[in-house]
């Protein structure tokens, strides 16, 4: 009827936005970008704005002109070295016209699901990977979805796919990373569980009422799941 092994599902939603870099890295990037600006060649405004055109006049009006060298002035902090409207001792600051119409309206990185802390939503924690955890009423244990493998199963990933459909409905677009299992989990009753890795691309997980589920990130899984179980799946997350 069924094979003496099970197939588990590591279904994940990959990040939607890049995570904010660590404070040290932010400081490092600031330092290096300021260095780059200081060492950058002068902007070739002669190429982009032709002499005598209106756009050139508008551009020049916006820029703060550097103080030119003058024989009759003693510059206490060094004589200016100005070429193409830039003092070569300092970084160049280009001031552009604020274009209100074309301004990109950035969406907030903290979503509604974040503020409500809705663990069933896929729009929560969009800078981290979320994994599907399931709590069947019959077992009352939080773990990755796990299914039996029928005797006539063509392959593990087919069994996993069918199991996911039967559990969570048909309106999910998932992608199997590989037919090869990512790991094998050993349970107390000696039935090995081979994990198939998948990513959810579209849709929602819609199970029956007796199945409790959550989309959680690695730190949250650590709190919800048994210690031994987490030790086994820690590396894969």
């Amino acid at each position, binding site marked *: 009827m069924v094979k003496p092994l099970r197939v588990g599902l590591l279904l994940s939603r*990959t*990040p939607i936005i*890049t*995570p904010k*870099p660590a404070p040290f*890295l932010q400081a*490092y*990037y600031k330092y*290096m*970008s300021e*260095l*780059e600006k200081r*060492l950058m060649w002068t902007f070739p405004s002669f*190429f*982009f704005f032709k002499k005598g055109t209106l756009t050139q006049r508008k551009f020049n009006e916006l820029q703060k002109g550097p103080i030119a060298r003058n024989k009759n002035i003693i510059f206490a902090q060094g004589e200016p070295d100005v070429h193409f409207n830039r003092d070569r001792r300092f970084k160049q600051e280009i001031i552009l016209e604020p274009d209100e119409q074309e301004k990109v309206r950035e969406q907030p990185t903290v979503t509604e699901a974040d503020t409500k802390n809705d663990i069933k939503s896929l729009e929560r924690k969009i800078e981290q*990977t979320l994994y599907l955890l399931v709590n069947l009423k019959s077992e009352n244990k939080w773990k990755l979805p796990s299914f039996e493998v029928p005797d006539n199963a063509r392959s593990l990933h087919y069994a996993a796919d069918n199991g996911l459909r039967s559990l969570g409905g048909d309106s999910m677009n998932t992608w199997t*990373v*590989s037919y*090869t299992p*990512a790991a094998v989990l050993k349970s107390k009753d000696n039935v090995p569980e081979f994990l198939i*890795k998948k990513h959810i691309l579209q849709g929602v997980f819609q199970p029956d009422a007796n199945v409790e589920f959550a989309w959680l990130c690695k730190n949250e899984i650590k709190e919800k799941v048994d210690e031994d179980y987490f030790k086994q799946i820690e590396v894969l997350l």
Partner: protein
Amino acid sequence: MRTHLVRNFSTSSALLGRTGVSIVPPVHHLIRFKKSQLSDKARPPKSWVTSAGFRPQITRHDRLRQHYNDTLASDLLLLNYTHNETTVEGARRKPRAPVTPYSVYQPSKPLPQHTQPTKDIKPRTSENIPHLERISINCFAKPAIENRDLAITAKVMLQHITGMKPRDVFAKTNLPMFHLRPGMPVGAKVEITGEAMSQFVSTLTELVLPRSRTFRNISGKCGDGNGNIGLKLTKHDITLFPELENSLELWPETFDIDLIVHTSAQTDREARTLLSGLGFPVSSEIRK
């Protein structure tokens, strides 16, 4: 031996009661140094802050790299895994069999005619997950054969697209049919790495290729056999780059470019899988 590195002044021997002779134990043979750095003309390397050619390499967070480290690397490890894989030997010159004491000094068997030696394909582990290495962009501007100045235009075009300084390309062959003579300036080329490469890949996959009229996908026959994938972009595709898009009146002439994406993949299939993960559309028909 290292204990003799301290060089004492000649006067210290006199204090100890020995004859005050200026014998200084030599250390030049114990310390490794580059003789060129001692010369008056020695300059610091380009990577040092105060040198003329210094340019900071990492100035912002690389989101392509972040995506690779978070998601792609472990997915590629799983995708490319084959159980109990062994090294597949490439074509190479082999010693003449049977190996006897006489045949040892005989020249090895040459490869069959018209075959080149190929690399061994090693088993895929966590040590050799395919990643992007560099992108070579070559722009052969055919109109530059008639008008020399267009080679300069091609160079500026590449500089604007990539953010790195290109080099001139001169003709090597003599083709009187096409009026091509060796030494003619005929375009530009540039090799981009690091941050600039990630930015270039992002603009390609998100802005240029989706809007291109001619580009469909990377074909299943693509690749040089060694994991490097070639692409062609038409002169219309170049106008879709955001750097040129806003000032198209300055660009009456743009040129076709050839891109080669160099990856550390061992086969073309692996390279195409990697590119599909980075956002490139790859054909489903695999023929190579």
